[in-house]
């Protein structure tokens, strides 16, 4: 097998929104995962063929550098948006984000639209490929119980602060104590007129003291929220994603000289636990024009279709380290074409908050022209910015 070693640098810039202008409602979460946009997959330059379920970013851009030793500007780009979060992310609540089982909410909150472009080389001839895709989840799983507990603990801690501060205010307030004592005496005397009057006065005084507590809290609650910034928000349980994408080739830097390269639709479903995850993938691809490009012409574009079935296993023994292996078998639906397969092994390590280094090694599908499979190696550095979610609780 001829080794064709590629070195890729992948930068993911994502999640743009401002940090914590309303401190009690906005949590800075660690959402970053090794990316796998449908646009990259359909263009054929993703570091994984089987997408893992992940929490979406509002906006994500990808830059790839396929040149030697990082000596040139990136030639491959992708842009991914999540309309549900860009358009009305502020209206998605803690409960609906963490626990909602509505398929409509799942689809809308997980919908990602992606666009990508890359420069490919065949027979020493460059040509551009552009892809567009969408991805959404029918079922996303649920945020792990331990993560939800952290939210609850935070909510309870804030409440305890409010309660204790209110108690202190009551104990130190002379008017509150005087009204309480008078009310107790009125209860003993059973003086209904005085009871009604004192109850109202005491309620008003209590609300005034509660207001004082909430005003003081406004300026001191940031510390509590920082507890949540270290939470890695991952979902567990059954999940089911659906994706679709198409890609076009553009030759001779000419928009008129183009054709549809391939399009397809696929579904991923599986189960995700705290440390293990199994994903099955079924995919239909239609290669409308798989070109053989030479310096002077594009020869005999081959058309064919395939059904791909894949299996991926992900093991993340710690929150920082993740290993995955995936295999895809391609059934060619056209006579005379050989079946082929691909496998990849991925190693990902969180080097810091929202920063991942990913190494992918594997074997690519056999090409229809060369009948040879290439070895693959992708080295990626991924960094995300501004991973905020407006949550309540």
């Amino acid at each position, binding site marked *: 097998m001829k080794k064709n070693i590629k070195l890729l640098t992948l930068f993911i810039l994502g999640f743009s929104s401002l940090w914590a202008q*309303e401190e*009690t*409602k906005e949590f800075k979460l660690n959402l970053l995962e090794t990316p796998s946009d449908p646009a990259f997959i359909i263009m054929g330059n993703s570091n994984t063929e089987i997408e893992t379920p992940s929490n979406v970013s509002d906006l994500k851009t990808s830059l790839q550098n396929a040149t030697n030793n990082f000596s040139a500007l990136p030639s491959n780009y992708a842009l991914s948006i999540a309309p549900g979060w860009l358009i009305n992310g*502020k*209206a*998605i*609540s*803690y*409960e*609906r984000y963490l*626990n909602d089982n509505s398929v409509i909410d799942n689809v809308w909150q997980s919908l990602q639209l992606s666009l990508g472009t890359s420069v490919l080389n065949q027979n020493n001839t460059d040509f551009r490929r552009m892809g567009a895709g969408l991805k959404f989840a029918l079922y996303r799983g649920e945020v792990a119980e331990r993560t939800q507990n952290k939210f*609850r603990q935070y*909510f*309870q801690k*804030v*409440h*305890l602060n*409010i*309660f204790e501060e*209110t*108690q202190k205010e009551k*104990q130190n307030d002379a008017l509150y104590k005087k009204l*309480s004592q008078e*009310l*107790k005496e009125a*209860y*003993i005397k059973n003086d209904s007129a005085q*009871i009604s009057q004192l*109850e109202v006065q*005491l*309620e*008003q005084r*209590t*609300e005034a003291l*509660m*207001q004082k507590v*909430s005003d003081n*809290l406004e300026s001191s609650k940031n510390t509590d929220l920082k507890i949540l910034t270290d939470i890695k928000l991952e979902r567990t349980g059954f999940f089911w994603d659906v994706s679709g994408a198409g890609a076009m080739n553009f030759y001779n830097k000419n928009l008129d000289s183009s054709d549809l390269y391939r399009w397809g639709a696929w579904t991923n479903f599986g189960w995700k636990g705290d440390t293990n995850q199994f994903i099955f993938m079924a995919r239909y691809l239609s290669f409308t024009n798989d070109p053989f490009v030479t310096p002077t012409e594009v020869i005999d574009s081959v058309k064919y279709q395939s059904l791909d079935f894949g299996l991926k296993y992900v093991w993340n023994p710690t929150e920082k380290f993740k290993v995955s292996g995936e295999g895809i078998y391609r059934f060619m639906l056209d006579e005379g074409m050989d079946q082929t397969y691909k496998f990849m092994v991925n190693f990902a390590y969180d080097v810091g908050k929202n920063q991942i280094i990913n190494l992918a090694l594997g074997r690519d599908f056999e090409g229809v022209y060369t009948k040879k499979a290439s070895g693959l190696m992708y080295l990626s550095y991924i960094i995300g910015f501004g991973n905020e979610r407006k949550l*309540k*609780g």
Partner: protein
Amino acid sequence: MINKSKVSAFRITKPEAQVLVDVHSGFGQPIDTIVSVNGDKKIQEFGNLEAKPIDSGAALKNQQIVVHVMCQDKNTSTDNLDVAIKVYEEGGTSVSMNYKGEASEEGEMLVMDLTLFCI
């Protein structure tokens, strides 16, 4: 933050029975309850409460119960922010405090303070 308070007498008629507390909020609203007797915290629980015992009527006579509830709405403008607190003896006295309001876009926090003088 919305602050609501209610002050009332709670007449113990069955000293041998437990005094119970119910706390309910509308669907999907995170809710937390703290119950204190004479300033000492006896209960703190996340979620709705159903017939949660505080103490016996005999033990609570002449004491002051505070039921402190914090709740947050679903942040959807069409939903209501509803919370109901009920302290009661089974088959005996009961005192309720209810809040019904419009949920805000901003995810308003509601804090309710029900003070009961047990007599």
